[in-house]
């Protein structure tokens, strides 16, 4: 895969569209990964903030 000739964009990227809408589902509240997720949700933290703690 090479860059096609004539492709150009500001700062080398361009946005074409956004994601399709999401589906609301229930996650099963079990396992260590869920508990980490719940902790982030409750304290409104992002992944990287969580890692720093």
């Amino acid at each position, binding site marked *: *895969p*090479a*860059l*096609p*000739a004539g*492709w150009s*964009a500001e*700062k*080398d*990227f*361009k*946005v*074409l*569209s*956004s*994601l*399709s*809408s*999401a*589906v*609301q*589902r*229930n*996650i*099963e*509240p*079990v*396992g*260590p*990964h*869920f*508990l980490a*997720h*719940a*902790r982030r*949700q*409750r304290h409104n933290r*992002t*992944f990287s903030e969580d890692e720093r703690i």
Partner: protein
Amino acid sequence: MSEETGAGERFAIGISFGNSSSSIAFTGPDGKAEVIANEEGDRQIPTILSYVESEEFHGTQAKAQLIRNSKNTVAYFRDYLGKDFKSIDPTPAHQSAHPQQSDSTVAFTIQDTDAETPSTVTVSEITTRHLRRLKQSATDFLGKTVNAAVITVPTNFSDAQREALVAAAKNADIEVLQLIHEPVAALLAYDARPDAVVEDKLVVVADFGGIRSDVAVVASRGGMYSVLATVHDYELGGANLDQVVIDHFAKEFIKKHKVDPREDARGLAKLKLEGEATKKALSIGTNATLSIESLVNGIDYGSTINRTRYELLSGKIFSQFTGLIESAVKKADLDVLDIDEVILAGGTSHTPKIARLLESIFPEKTKVLAPSTTPSAINPSELSARGAAYQASLIQEFDTEDIEQSIHPMVTVTPHLSKTIGVQLVSADESGEFVPLVNAETALPARRVAQYTVPKEGGDVLIRITEGEREIKVTKPEPKPKAEKTEEDEEDSDFDSDEDEEEEIREVIWKSTKPIAEAAVKGVKAGGKVEVTININSDLGLQITAREVGGKGGVRLAVEAPAASANGSA
């Protein structure tokens, strides 16, 4: 273990509470879940209570009482808990104490004290007594008073049933930390193993129990689980297979002695008990015996059955089990090709033939986790108890309030990606292959990183982030044998070639459906790799980073959340 909180220390175990049998499990300090045997040495403890002259029997001992003392023996009561009498199916309890209406709940009339008149005991009270015995067995084994538990329940257990179970456990002095779903517990039991690798996969968990069967299709994404579809069958379970064995032996008995032992209540109870044991033996060996003293009319009976015969007789029932799995996959709008793992749980999953049939239904890459197909498989009977024990060890030190907040719908109802997001490495001449990076049904927020090899010569690379869909490509082999075939062909060969012909080749093809963003990474070294990181927020906004592995800088870009569903209304 020690907590500074002044409140009494918690000591939690995992309990799987089934209609036919229950298990207790504990997670040791090494992080390994172990199923605890009760004082009789049973790890699968029959969910049965029996009373003989005011003495309480539990588990296997109570099960034996189904023959002599069926009226004072309570069995198969789990599904009656928290239910209205009109909505229950009393069939499973035919051979034991019958359920009856008592106010708004279900009760049993049993002689459980020395009093002259039998007492009416509600199903909650029976559950409490059962849990108390389980708790006692665990306490005796562990040498420390158990006062809390994580209990597994079916996915379609209603709120009333959950409340009734928590209340019954409370009466047995067990604090229910959390009720978790049986299939998810089974999945957790596998993922909690130290050598397990967290990966995105679609898993079918089939829980084949004694008197009911449940199948769930679960998306496992980054160690988090979302149930996509469930199916339940209340008339399918190990009891159907027991019946096959019972009928087989009963017919043999009739041939010899001209009486049907199934028509005698006690004869039937004996056949049931021994027939089940024979069926279990057939899951291990290829031959099993059955011998019953004084089956009916004082006649002793002994005979054998081999596995081939049993599998032949059970063919129809086996296909009901596999059919249930196929219907669950269909209900989730998936194809067997999408499934990465099939976890067989529940006692009936020991049957080798069921696992082998599943292997033939699913593609080769799908792992069928059962003792007969995967040597490292965990005992199917122990899965949910182990999962519960593991979960118990994770949360036992949390405050009750913490647990409640964490399992609140505010936390668990989460947007999931509806389409798979992947990367296309695009070159000038070809459109580029779509490689999935973040799978559909991934809970948000999520982050994934992957590396891609660039062409040998290196240079500038265009990366296109795009949504994709999987399609199933069906290739029909050329119908050449048709022409050659003559009418004189023998029936056998005709049949065979027909089979071959219809064998289509089905494969998964990924198609890019909606390009999201493009980025150029320039001047990649020959033989280098490009690393792409995607961060997706709950509002569907995303950040993408693309850089050469070992290189500096790279390209960063952000895609804004779609305006229409910014609040996650979809």
